[in-house]
């Protein structure tokens, strides 16, 4: 369970004291499929980064299950991320000079998984995402959809509880975008919490809950079945 309690985020008080997030309180249960919507600059990515433990809060508290993430040290935060969170980014964030296989391997190496074990896990994931044949290709030689699948595989290999996706379909065409969304849906069905940021209402409508934010505040929060 993710619980935010009056979370405020100001990036740099000296430069700009505007609140990227303004007293946001929010609870997301395990296994939810959530989309976050809102205009550009409203604080969507900020919210996602805080949930993912990539950024710190300025004020307020963030709990993950019983753990108070907002007060973790850098090192523990690091471990928290490794254990619980999988990220998917708009522009895939794949390493250009690494093959699909090597890209997916990164979180496993970070978690000190043995080489043999890594191979097994990665092959399974490649297989289930239908991209086994591109495992030795570098990102530059893949289509956008393939790249995002590789990125999703990478988010999944460590068996994270929560998958965070910042505009995962933003750089893809309509059809590929829907395919990727389908994958995320499947991942959610397998029991993981999936939170995506999107501009696209047709994508958001496929999720079970839509949170709209504006100027760092939650404007609406609607569950749908």
């Amino acid at each position: 369970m993710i619980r935010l309690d009056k979370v405020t985020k100001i990036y740099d008080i000296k430069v700009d004291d505007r609140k990227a997030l303004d007293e946001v309180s929010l609870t997301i249960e395990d296994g939810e499929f959530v989309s976050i919507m809102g205009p550009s600059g409203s604080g969507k990515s900020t919210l996602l980064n805080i949930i993912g433990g990539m950024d710190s809060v300025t004020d307020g508290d963030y709990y993950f299950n019983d753990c108070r993430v907002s007060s973790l040290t850098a090192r523990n935060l690091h471990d928290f991320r490794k254990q619980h969170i999988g990220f998917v980014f708009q522009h895939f964030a794949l390493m250009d000079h690494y093959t699909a296989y090597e890209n997916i391997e990164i979180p496993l190496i970070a978690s000190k998984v043995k080489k043999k074990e890594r191979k097994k896990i990665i092959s399974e994931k490649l297989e289930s995402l239908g991209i086994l044949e591109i495992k030795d290709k570098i990102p530059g030689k893949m289509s956008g959809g393939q790249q995002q699948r590789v990125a999703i595989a990478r988010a999944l290999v460590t068996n994270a509880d929560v998958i965070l996706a910042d505009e995962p379909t933003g750089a893809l065409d309509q059809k590929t975008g829907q395919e990727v969304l389908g994958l995320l849906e499947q991942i959610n069905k397998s029991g993981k919490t999936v939170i995506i940021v999107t501009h696209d209402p047709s994508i958001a409508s496929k999720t079970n809950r839509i949170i709209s934010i504006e100027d760092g505040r939650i404007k609406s929060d609607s569950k749908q079945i």
Partner: protein
Amino acid sequence: MIHKIFRYHLVSVYFIISQMVILMSVFNVLHIFNKAYAKERERLEAIADNRIELTVDTVNGQDMLTGAGKGVTKGNVVAEGKLTCEVAEIGSLNRCEVILSINEATPYKMISGHIPGESPDDTGKRCVALGRNKVGYAKERDGIKYLTINQEEYEVVGIIGSENSDFWDYKIVLNSDCMGDKLKNSYKSVNNYTITIYSNLSSVQETFEQVYQNLLSADSYSNIVAVDKRQKGESTVKATLQRENLRTNVLVYVFCIINSIIISMFWVVQRKKEVAIKRVFGYSNIRIVSDLARDLLLLMIITFVFYLTGYAIVQFIIYLNTGMYDHWNLTSVLAVIGMFFLTMIITLVTPVIEIYKNASEIIK
């Protein structure tokens, strides 16, 4: 493994090249030092325990050299200083030394043959011993080398040189008993030279008195100053180092170190995305830095191995051609290892700082 290091091949290749130049400058500096000290060692080894040096000034145009060693039974006597000879094959005047008497082992390091006068066959024959550098000018006929000195042909009976340094390489050693008349005549007009009497076996006082008498009987007006030499003379190390391009090599090294820093910075810049991604997916800073260090270290080792191989080959070729090779002592080996690590540390400092400074985990 290798393909992982060469992922960013352009930077890698550039890095290797700059490391190569670093090694070259380091090896050059060491080579120069080794050479300078080897040469000095050789100079010191060649100095006899007992020495008296005579500075002779004469104006009468007498042949002072032929009779100077007469009656000497202890120690060796050699004339040098302003003595030169005219070698047709080289086309210039060359410094030379003329042995006046041999009664014990000479200090010359021989590659082959002997010093004129050391063999009974030499008497009455025109012959010469040459350093490696000079021997190249000699012409060979029927398996014997000849050199034309003051328009007369001299047989080369010995080649002087050592594998340690070039200390002996420019020597021309003659003997007053194995010299042509033309050269002898030319020495009549030399009015200043030094004569050294030396021995490792006995005192040279007696010999000095004999030579002194011989000189005075050749020209009673000559002015002779005798100095009993105790010191080993001035070290040649400084002069050798000055002659060699030590400073250039040091500058090249410094330049390349700076270059390496820039390359390694560029290395990080190029891997910015990679670093950010690795961080997001759980790599710690230490892990990222150690990966980077491993890559750079491997590149350095690859370069080092390449360089050593090349160095060995070049040394072998030089050895075949000149009979000389670099002498490495413990200090030089330690110095190279030290430079290797220093270079590595300097190269790594910037990326490490860079990585720790920009510890952001946000991917745009």
